[in-house]
């Protein structure tokens, strides 16, 4: 069974979507490690190392995603899990910015998949299956 680490990054306490993601991915047959809200980059990375996770799925709902996620890929590389899949989704930037540009920003930061606001987790599930080769 493949392991996915999920959580909400930064000073962000939006817990509802986090629970829905946990529910959906668990039902889909994944071992979900939910580190919850107010999580730091290090919390995600540490959990991924200990659980030998294949994917880290970061949620950010309060607009500060870009600041909170910066440097995360580099830290993964330093921690020896440089190849891990990194997804991010939610309201990851403030206001109504052009999503194509937002997506590019996060891809440049080393994220594998970037989702716009309001994406149902089922859409992401298709990508997860594909990326994890299932």
């Amino acid at each position, binding site marked *: 069974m493949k392991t996915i680490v999920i959580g909400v990054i930064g000073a962000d306490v939006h817990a509802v979507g986090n629970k829905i993601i946990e529910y959906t991915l668990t039902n889909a047959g994944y071992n979900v490690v939910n580190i919850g809200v107010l999580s730091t980059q290090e919390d995600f990375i540490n*959990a991924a190392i200990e659980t030998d996770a294949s994917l880290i799925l970061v949620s950010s709902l309060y607009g500060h995603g870009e600041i909170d996620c910066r440097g995360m890929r580099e830290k993964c590389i330093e921690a020896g899990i440089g190849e891990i899949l990194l997804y991010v989704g939610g309201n990851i930037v403030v206001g109504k910015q052009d999503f194509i540009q937002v997506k590019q920003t996060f891809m440049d930061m080393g994220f594998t998949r970037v989702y716009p606001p309001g994406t149902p987790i089922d859409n992401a599930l298709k990508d997860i299956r594909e990326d994890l080769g299932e």
Partner: protein
Amino acid sequence: MANFLLIDFGSTFTKLCAVNTEAEDIIDTASYFTTVDTDISVGYHEALKILYRKIGREIEFEQVIACSSAAGGLKMAAIGLVEELTVEAAKRVCLGAGAKVDLVFSHHINKSEIRQIIEKKIDIILLAGGADGGNSENVLFNARALGKAGIKIPIIFAGNKSAQDEVADIFEEYEMDGYICDNVMPKINVLNIESAREKIRQIFLDKIIEAKGIKSIEKDIDAVILPTPQAVLEASKLLSEGYLTEEGFGDLVVVDIGGATTDMYSICTPTKRSDVLLHGLEEPFAKRTVEGDLGVRYSAPGIIKSLSEQEIKFINMEKNVDIEKEVEKRYNDVKTLPENAHDEFIDQFLAEVCAYRAMYRHVGRIEEVFTPIGKVFNQTGKDLTDIKYVIGTGGVIINSKNQESILLRTTNILHSETELRPLEPTFMVDEKYIMAAMGLLSKKDPLLALKIMKKYIRTI
């Protein structure tokens, strides 16, 4: 009429406590120097003679049981994967088992780390790493590295369950003294103490006390059953929780300042508040931390090291002493007892620093986080603000002329906004130095142990 004799073989003193079960009281106590370097039974029999003299006659004991921290106590190395997770979990298990954690390693261990395990004469290695079903590679690497290096001391594997079989094979392949137990961190941030702690205790009793020359005492007494710090932890827990109809004290902290270490115990849940978010590895209800660099004799130089140059100058100026010289004197002659008011003053000062620093490292922290939906509190570690009692034990505190001033240092005297130190606890002292003995007794007769503690641990 039944009498129990409870013994604590300490690093410096062998302490005896005789209890009568019918009178539900202590008959008397006595102590003599620990003689583990030559023959541990010599010191025991001397102490026993003193005890008989105090009682006025020789008495029979139904049971004679002991705990021990003699010959360096139980020295362990905790090895895990990630520092904040399995390394921390492994460390907490060792501390909960009454060990001194001399070495702590994370990720792949290297040759110099293995050398340290040998040089520091570690008694037991606790090898953890990986949540269940998680990372196996690291523990397999480490088990093999220890095997290749020819490590023959007991190794407890308490990591990823999926790696158990392979680790067991490695233990066999290299003819290691290996043991398998449940994972100390089966899931992220979940702490699982029991299985590994019990294994540590068993190995301590089966092998370590023999290697240290303590086992030979079992020809004179019934058994050594616990490492001393675990006995104190058991006593603290009993005193807090109560037993059957006998009520306990509720949430409490015990501080034990010795010559070589300062031990801090807290018995309470991590928080009682509903408006905080707990962060990090789960905290044990009965938590022990031990500071190997804080003590008033062997470890007095550690106190100096923890101070900045300016702080030292300030102390020397304000107290009109040469603190570095005083510390050196105590380090060079660890059996020094205070001879005059000046010596007492220095010991008092050192104990106060130990109490302050040890609590600084034991206590949890809280942080206000401003989020778009308002202010939230983020807590790591244990919240001790509501603790009802802070109890002092150990020679330095018991013999101090100003006990309160030492215990006060565990509270929030500097008005820190982040440290969750006790706010307004009642201060108590284990005047008769019986907590370890009562931890032992609690294994035989918890109700009696509790009654005696409630009688002799007094408010100051």
